């Protein structure tokens, strides 16, 4: 099981703040592609990805038990 966290415009586009997905392993890029198609959220392309609270690259493999967060361009301050 992979825990997915969504924030800001992604959260509103998907209509949920988290998802539980039945993968044992998937790359960041593939997961993004899957979500883009499933929920029609094009803006996920602009989002950074964090695995277990650390930024990760597109080719990083997400494993069972990981928490993945999609992070739209930030605007703190």
């Amino acid at each position: 099981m992979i825990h997915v966290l969504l924030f800001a415009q992604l959260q509103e586009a998907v209509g949920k703040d988290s998802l539980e997905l039945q993968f044992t392993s998937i790359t960041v890029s593939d997961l993004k592609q899957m979500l883009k198609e499933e929920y029609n959220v094009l803006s996920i392309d602009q989002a950074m990805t964090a695995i277990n609270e650390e930024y990760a690259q597109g080719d990083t493999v997400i494993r069972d038990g990981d928490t993945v967060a999609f992070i739209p361009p930030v605007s703190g301050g």
Partner: protein
Amino acid sequence: MRQSDFWITKNTISIESVVEKVVRPKAGAIDTFIGTVREFTKGKRTLFLEYQAYVPMAEKKLTQIGTEIKQQWPDAKTAIVHRIGHLDITDIAVVIAVSTPHRADAFEACRYAIERIKEIVPIWKKEHWEDGTMWIGDQKEQQTYPGGKPSEEDLT
């Protein structure tokens, strides 16, 4: 008193509570940056704002900024708090305090901290204007990340 020097809060921020974390005998200078909610941005009127954060990661990234500052300015001590939730015009969204023995370093390190917050800390601002709402991104006006990721340099 709270343990960490880097935190996210839903409550009004007391400036003194942030500054007191960096006051110490070695320091003669403290620079603080205070971000407040501005009413007009490029002619558009903001009614209020909503900040959202990925809280545990945001606190981790604020802590990382403190570590980065320590590497560049070894005599510096940093504290940062960011508020989330509903904020009205003039409410304080963020307070950064950096103390150093001499003033030039305090100014530079504090400036560094606010720039880094806008790059790497997962906090989002939703503008509530008179005529609609929008999640604001990309305050630094960087390009979007073609690979869906910032460069190594941005993140480390």
